[in-house]
């Protein structure tokens, strides 16, 4: 069976494509790679973005089993474990089990990981979390074992029963690992950043004897509302009662700013990838036009030509997109496969990859649509009244770009630029669209820049004896359309890299600045081992006294804090002692006076909140905000609005005295050490380490070391951004290089004719390299200008939308680096094929 469409047999469609593939293998490969790179970028980022919350949902459902409600503590101090029994006794409760969750650090021979230690009551089995089918796991946990997901165990280099140290509550517990998870529990915690133990063992390890942080509850059928009411009555406004899924919305909120940042980068990256693919296809236009003319002259009608060309584009689009998806999958499993460690402080996370059918269809669709759109220009030859052999009647080579087109594109680009500016200033949330539109502006402005540059270079070249610049400029003019397309590829490459790279640099610079200022209040910090944000408490009264006796120590201040759930936000609470040299980081104040706000916070009853919280609750300086503290709801005045200080859901800064009173704890999250005049930080640090020899779980760090550790964690969380930026740069440079190479290769006949006329191959090679350099420079200048503008918009958007500190800085060095990388890589790649093309046998010039 061989059906026909418009009178063309389907088998012939395949045969036509087979012929094309054989004849134009290089062009098809080039176009295909351009599309594949774009699709890979889109797919990789989409998978990375959806996987964090998707896999965390799987993990949380695995850990909460059939429970639908939970009673949870408002601080890491938790509540009495007797409460679990009271919950079980409530009317309508079918099953309930207590949990203790605490952020801990496990350290093995080859590294350390921050994980959420989850201690279960044995009756968790009733919720379906630990089943009877896993006797070995249960038994091992019963004898005091600690379960680690295989991935965590692998990361720290520990096997079954292997030696590991667990840091919690300022203590170090050696040889705590007894088990690497297998079986059903393992599948729930697969790739997770958790450790599991039975409750008594977890309480012992964390020093939270007879304490719980959560009670998971499964109401009897139809009793959901009754049980929720009873739980609220029991909580008495001092604990939270919520759905077990509430954790997910908090994670979603926490991950949102990073996801938004990644989305912006991915959108710009995808647009650049799409346009790169489009340009790669445009390079095949001359061949496709000749093919259309051949078909028409052989009697094929317009429908048939459309069918054949459409089929070819479809095959290329589908093939290249599938290759792109495979490449993207590889990227998402390797480069983008990172669980953001700083979020693991507050949530049990999983690094499992989740690929939804929507993601697959989106990536495939984008690639196919790009290919089909790019296949359209040659079809203009099918317009009625156009002679069938028009392409052969036209001049050999390409028609130049008309003045009208230059002016039209230039004006269109400027209008679009103005529109983007107005749009983004009026509605910052549209920055993603603006960033994508700027990529189009970069392309639209190329013809005008190309024309002006060639004129200038032509004039310079006229005066230089034997200059290959004139040959290069003449050749560029003779292939104006193609050259503009190539310069467009370079412009897109540089635009994307500068805009994304710049915004990324601002973000990292902003976060680094916030972290440095945050840790600048003490010369030396004493914290829980492996801890990142000073959110984990430890008993410190005796420790502080011991440290105060170390020579060179002038002051020891107790810093408090932790995490607090407010609506869907898990906020970072920073409770600074009033005697701290600074209670607020000067560079992070968005609204309010630093001096006045600091004075108010020191006085008590006032707090500084992040802009994301302020915006969400429409709060301004002077308003009040009620916080759900462990002692009940307490209202604070808003003294200042800050950035999120590097913690995506936002932060609250208050006086340590307020914290002590309302959180009802004297435990420290860190100790801030001030040095005596002329004391050496290193010597004092060693002195403190000696004094703390009995508390190996406490780590002593200088302010600089502490900042560096936190910065490394923040950077790890934003690593995807860095990788998108770097991938885009590499993909772009390779796209430029392969496009240039293909074009150079297609010109061998012309090069051969120049050789016959007496040009030696070195002269031709020089001319080719000059041509490429001119194109790269034109593209780069355009890309840099638009890229810096895109960068400024992106940084503004990051600050306004995500709450991250990301002050715009032009970053001349980064721009120069980008240009040198793109140009350097492209020139290095084309140097060899260029030399080979320049050495083309002369007889190629005599054959058509």
């Amino acid at each position, binding site marked *: 069976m061989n059906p026909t469409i418009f009178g063309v047999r389907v088998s012939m469609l395949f045969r036509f494509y087979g012929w094309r593939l054989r004849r134009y293998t290089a062009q098809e490969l080039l176009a295909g790679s351009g599309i594949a790179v774009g699709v890979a970028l889109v797919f990789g980022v989409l998978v990375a973005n959806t996987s964090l919350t998707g896999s965390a949902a799987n993990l949380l459902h695995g850990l909460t089993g059939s429970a639908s409600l939970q009673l949870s503590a408002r601080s890491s101090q938790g509540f009495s474990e007797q409460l679990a029994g009271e919950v079980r006794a409530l009317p309508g409760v079918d099953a309930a089990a207590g949990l203790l969750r605490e952020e801990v650090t496990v350290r093995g021979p080859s590294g350390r990981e921050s994980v959420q230690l989850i201690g279960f009551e044995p009756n968790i089995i009733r919720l379906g979390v630990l089943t009877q089918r896993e006797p070995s796991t249960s038994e091992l946990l019963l004898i005091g074992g600690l379960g680690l997901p295989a991935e965590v165990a692998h990361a720290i280099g520990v096997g079954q029963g292997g030696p590991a140290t667990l840091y919690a509550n300022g203590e170090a517990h050696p040889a705590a690992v007894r088990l690497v998870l297998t079986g059903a529990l393992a599948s729930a915690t697969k790739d997770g950043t958790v450790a599991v133990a039975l409750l008594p063992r977890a309480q012992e390890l964390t020093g939270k004897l007879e304490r719980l942080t959560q009670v998971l509850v499964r109401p009897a059928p139809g009793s959901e509302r009754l049980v929720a009411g009873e739980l609220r009555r029991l909580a008495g406004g001092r604990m939270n009662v919520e759905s077990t899924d509430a954790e997910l919305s908090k994670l979603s909120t926490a991950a949102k700013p990073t996801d938004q940042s990644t989305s912006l980068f991915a959108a710009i990256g995808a647009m650049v990838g799409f346009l790169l693919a489009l340009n790669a296809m445009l390079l095949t236009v001359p061949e496709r036009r000749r093919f259309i003319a051949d078909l028409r002259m052989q009697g094929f009608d317009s429908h048939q030509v459309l069918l054949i060309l459409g089929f070819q584009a479809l095959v290329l689009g589908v093939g290249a997109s599938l290759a792109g998806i495979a490449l993207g999958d590889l990227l998402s499993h390797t480069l983008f496969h990172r669980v953001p460690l700083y979020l693991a402080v507050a949530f049990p996370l999983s690094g499992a990859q989740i690929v939804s059918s929507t993601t697959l269809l989106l990536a495939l669709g984008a690639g196919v649509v790009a290919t089909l759109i790019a296949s359209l220009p040659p079809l203009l030859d099918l317009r009625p009244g156009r002679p069938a052999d028009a392409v052969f009647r036209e001049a050999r*080579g390409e028609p*130049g770009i008309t003045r009208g087109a230059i002016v039209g594109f230039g004006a269109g680009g400027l209008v679009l630029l103005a529109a983007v500016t107005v749009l983004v200033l009026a509605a910052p949330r549209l920055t993603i669209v603006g960033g994508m539109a700027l990529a189009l502006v970069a392309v639209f402005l190329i013809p005008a820049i190309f024309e002006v540059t060639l004129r200038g270079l032509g004039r310079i070249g*006229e005066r*230089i004896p*034997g200059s290959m610049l004139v*040959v290069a400029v003449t050749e560029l003019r003779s292939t104006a359309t193609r050259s503009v397309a190539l310069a467009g590829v370079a412009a897109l490459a540089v635009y994307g890299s500068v805009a994304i790279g710049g915004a990324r640099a601002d973000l990292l610079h902003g976060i680094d600045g916030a972290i440095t200022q945050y840790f600048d209040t003490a010369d030396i910090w004493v914290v829980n081992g492996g801890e990142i944000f000073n959110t984990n408490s430890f008993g410190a009264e005796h420790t502080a006294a011991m440290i105060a006796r170390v020579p060179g120590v002038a002051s020891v201040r107790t810093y408090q804090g932790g995490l607090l759930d407010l609506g869907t936000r898990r906020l970072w609470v920073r409770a600074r002692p009033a005697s701290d040299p600074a209670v607020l980081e000067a560079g992070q104040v968005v609204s309010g006076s630093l001096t006045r706000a600091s004075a108010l916070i020191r006085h008590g009853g006032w707090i500084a909140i992040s802009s994301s919280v302020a915006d969400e609750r429409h709060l301004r300086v002077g308003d009040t905000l009620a916080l759900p503290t462990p002692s009940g709801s307490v209202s604070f005045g808003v003294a200042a609005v800050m950035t999120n200080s590097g913690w995506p859901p936002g932060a609250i800064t208050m006086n340590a005295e307020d914290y002590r009173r309302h959180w009802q704890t004297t435990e420290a999250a860190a100790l801030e050490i001030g040095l005596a005049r002329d004391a050496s930080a290193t010597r004092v640090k060693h002195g403190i380490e000696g004094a703390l020899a009995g508390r190996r779980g406490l780590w002593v760090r200088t302010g600089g070391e502490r900042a560096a550790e936190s910065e490394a964690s923040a950077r790890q969380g934003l690593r995807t951004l860095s990788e998108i930026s770097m991938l885009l740069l590499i993909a772009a440079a390779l796209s430029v290089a392969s496009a240039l190479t293909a074009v150079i290769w297609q010109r061998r006949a*012309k090069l051969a004719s120049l050789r*016959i006329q*007496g040009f030696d191959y070195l002269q031709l090679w020089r001319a080719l390299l000059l041509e490429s350099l001119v194109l790269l420079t034109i593209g780069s200048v355009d890309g840099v200008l638009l890229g810096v503008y895109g960068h400024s918009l992106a940084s503004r958007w990051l600050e306004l939308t995500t709450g991250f500190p990301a002050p715009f800085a032009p970053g001349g060095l980064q721009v120069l680096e980008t240009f040198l990388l793109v140009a350097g890589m492209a020139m290095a790649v084309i140097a060899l094929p260029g030399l080979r093309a320049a050495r083309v046998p002369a007889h190629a010039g*005599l054959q058509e």
Partner: protein
Amino acid sequence: MSASLELRELVKYYTSGSEVVRAVDDVSLTVAPGELVGLYGPSGSGKTTLLLLTAGLLAPESGSIRFGEREVSSLTPGEGALYRRREVGFVFQSFHLMAGATALDNAALKLLGDGWTLRDARRATRPWLQRVGLGEREEHIPERLSMGERQRVAIARALAGEPRLLLADEPTGSLDSKRGREILGLLRDICHERRIPGLLVTHDPQARAFVDRVHTLRDGHLSEGLDAELEVGLV
């Protein structure tokens, strides 16, 4: 100073797998100054190879190619490039013009390889463009020129730098017969006027009327006049 082109017992073969193809087999030919010789032959007979040998772009297996005092077959690549830039004018079937560049710049392009500035090259080329009848159209780009005019630009380019040898590969192959006759007449006139030897590889029957002598190359062998098979074909 006029010089003649002398090919002596020239042999060039190509190997393709185990097969040896003698593209040029013991060819001897002299083209005197001011003489235009037409070289006919079927496709694959070795005409292009002979042209490339003459231009110093291929080295023969044996034999010699003398142009004036110069032994072309023993030129180094650098000397070969210099020879083609300064001594040889080459006309192609497919013109090889740069689209978008003016007729004058296209004609001047060749001189840039010899260290000229574009300004000087334009100045030197302008008379040649006038000579081929395109003085009024020097600012036109190839797209605005007829096929015949494009070939004239290519001839002006070949003549820029005042070559002492003219080589043409199917120069009328892309032209209609009227334009073809104009181009052939121009080539003949230039060889005669400038007293330079010219070698014209062609299939064009009407070229016989414009050349001083005709030779046939078949299977690498050169014979004087048109061989019987070609004679019938051309008629």
